[in-house]
């Protein structure tokens, strides 16, 4: 139960902290969900990449630092503590890249990772379809074999970042005649400005175009843009989904930083407002610390294993993270809005919004947490069946 950082880890933290102190913009960037803000965030990615802070855990040859999992956690802590901008490259770096490392070819990695790390190519995800949300295996969009590649048709929706992004990745049904619905799916990538692609921006709850619908009409995808074997896309996608649910997408640093801001808000509030919220504020602080320490334990387990043998994969334990961080995030933001009173609901385009609308924006974002990357209901089924061994039933 050693919580002491090695000299290398402490040095890494110092280097990250000092770089961030020098480079994090003093004023918040414009909202990521506008064309102007998207460009500003893309520029920030370029700056991160220039000093190899864009994807610290990648190998050096692809622009990373070969950082360990613990170092990655440290970087995330420092990043959020510094109040650095949201990561517009997240879909690529956190979701697509792990799949490329696990299932892609050397040529794909050489071609795709650099521009991804530098923010030159921003990736959107194209998973969901109107009739396939939680039940992802029931996808209908299809890929039909053609000379040198595939012709892709169908409709994708809630495609996050797609309103402004460059390329997308997703699953398509390449073989409609398989015994089980998650067979016969192919994982492929395509440009959002390719012939046959129509992008219709979709507003999220607060109206910001955080995602889009994609209408695909015989879009040509060359074989070079298929990841893994055709028809074997589900397995590759699930390793991505595992990443989304688990350790990588919601880094502990984000919640630790938010919990500290919440505690500061609580200390400034008048006693009659703060008093009744004591327990909820304390629970947010405790929850953020628990998530941070849980992350260290998971990183240790992945690296050295419970018995000294690395486990390599979180498996169903990733569902524990997903449920915990999403409920923590929501509770934390509900508490913040309750501390702020009605003014807390003012959005970032209201000039009187507390903290530039950061709490309101965070609240809207947190509302999606229990839904995306597999609803919490499904996660709890997985936890009960795979970790506790309860009998499978109809859900």
């Amino acid at each position, binding site marked *: 139960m050693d919580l002491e950082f090695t000299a290398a880890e402490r040095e890494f933290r110092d280097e990250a902290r000092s770089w961030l102190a020098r480079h994090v913009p003093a004023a918040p960037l414009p909202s990521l969900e506008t064309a102007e803000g998207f460009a500003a965030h893309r520029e920030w990615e370029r700056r991160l990449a220039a000093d190899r802070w864009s994807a610290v855990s990648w190998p050096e040859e692809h622009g990373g630092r070969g950082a360990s999992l613990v170092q990655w956690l440290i970087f995330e802590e420092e990043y959020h503590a510094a109040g650095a901008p949201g990561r517009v490259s997240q879909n690529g770096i956190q979701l697509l890249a792990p799949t490329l490392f696990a299932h892609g070819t050397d040529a794909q990695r050489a071609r795709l990772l650099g521009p991804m790390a530098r923010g030159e190519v921003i990736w959107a995800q194209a998973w*969901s379809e109107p009739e396939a*949300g*939680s*039940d992802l295996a*029931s996808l209908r969009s299809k890929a039909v074999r053609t000379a040198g590649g595939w012709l892709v048709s169908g409709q994708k*929706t*809630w495609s996050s970042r797609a309103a402004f992004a460059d390329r997308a990745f997703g699953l398509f049904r390449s073989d409609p005649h398989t015994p089980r619905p998650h067979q016969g799916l192919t994982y492929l990538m395509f440009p959002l400005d390719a012939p046959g692609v129509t992008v219709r921006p*979709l*507003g*999220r*709850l*607060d*109206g910001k175009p955080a995602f889009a619908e994609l209408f695909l009409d015989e879009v040509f995808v060359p074989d070079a843009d298929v990841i893994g074997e055709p028809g074997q896309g589900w397995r590759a996608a699930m390793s991505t989904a595992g990443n989304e649910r688990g350790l990588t997408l919601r880094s502990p640093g984000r919640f630790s930083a938010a919990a500290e801001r919440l505690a500061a808000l609580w200390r400034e509030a008048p006693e*009659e*407002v703060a008093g*009744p*919220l004591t327990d909820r504020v304390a629970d947010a602080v405790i929850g953020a610390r628990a998530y941070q320490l849980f992350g260290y334990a998971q990183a240790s387990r992945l690296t050295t294993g419970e018995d000294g043998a690395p486990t390599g994969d979180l498996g169903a334990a990733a569902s524990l993270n997903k449920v915990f961080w999403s409920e923590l995030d929501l509770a934390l933001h509900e508490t913040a*809005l*309750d501390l702020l*009173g*009605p*003014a807390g*609901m*003012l*959005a970032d*385009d*209201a*000039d*009187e*919004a507390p903290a530039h609308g950061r709490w*309101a924006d965070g*609240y*809207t974002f947190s*509302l*999606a947490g*229990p*839904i*995306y990357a597999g*609803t919490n*209901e499904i996660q*709890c089924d997985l936890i009960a069946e795979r970790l506790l061994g309860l009998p499978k039933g*109809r*859900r």
Partner: protein
Amino acid sequence: MRFLPSTEQREFARALDGLLTASDTPAVARAWAAGDHKPGRALWGRLAEAGVFGLAVSARHGGMGLLPAELTVAFTELGRHVMPGPLVETVAVAAFLERLDAGAATEWLPRIAAGEALVSLCADGPYALDADAADAVLVVEGDTVRRAEGHGPAQASLDPARRLFRPRGGTVLARGPAVTSAAGHALDVARLATAAQSLGLGRALLAQTVSHVTRRTQFGVPIGSFQAVKHRLADILIALEFAQPLVHGAAAALAAGAPSAGREVAAAKVAAGEAGHAAARTALQLHGALGYSEEPALSLWIRKARPLRDAWGTPAECRRRVLAG
């Protein structure tokens, strides 16, 4: 004792429900959020004809006297249909002016009753709702009331149909303990009307979600057959069913001028506001990404739930009021 809506009250609710259904209130709300108040004002007039605004105006000013029970009936329907505008504020101002009986009463009450005047009110925090759409904005500070001359820029909130403005300037209309007392009464009326709106909003959210989970299939079955979905919706029904008698009871207490009225209104506000908020959270979760999208009309209901929960007394303020005895 017969603690149920009367036949007349049920018919009044049905009539309003019919009127609002026929008026495509989601389109009215979207126009309102975009700054186009015309469809909203037109509907406002029809609501006045149906008797809504006269429920807080005395007979001599063209209304029916303060009828809190009928007011809760009306505001439940207004909430159910996400009708936009300073509805609560207008009836609260009416209640305020009736009590104050100043010169402004003669000027504004008949116009409020007739649906010709939308009036906003700033008495609980720095903002007035929809000041840009209102014909007048009253500002109560301590024991003075003034009519604002103008207002600052719109402050957008998470519900785009609720735009807030800081009122500016204006001349004092009245001053003294009568103002404080009338403002206290107006606050109770505002809280009661807001509670009823939350209740109606929650009912609509529940109905839409029940309908969705019955139709939407995933994993080969309607998602409404999953026990986790059933239990979340059962919890919402329970919350709404037990908030409703509090709202009706608070109306009765206000009508009777009971000393407990302020406490009962506060209790109703907490229960209805939290039930509406919980209904929105559940509607969002069970609609999944559909619920998180702006385009489906459902977003109009979801976004309004939390602002209503907090308007005219946050749950925390109202809980303190309940315990103050």
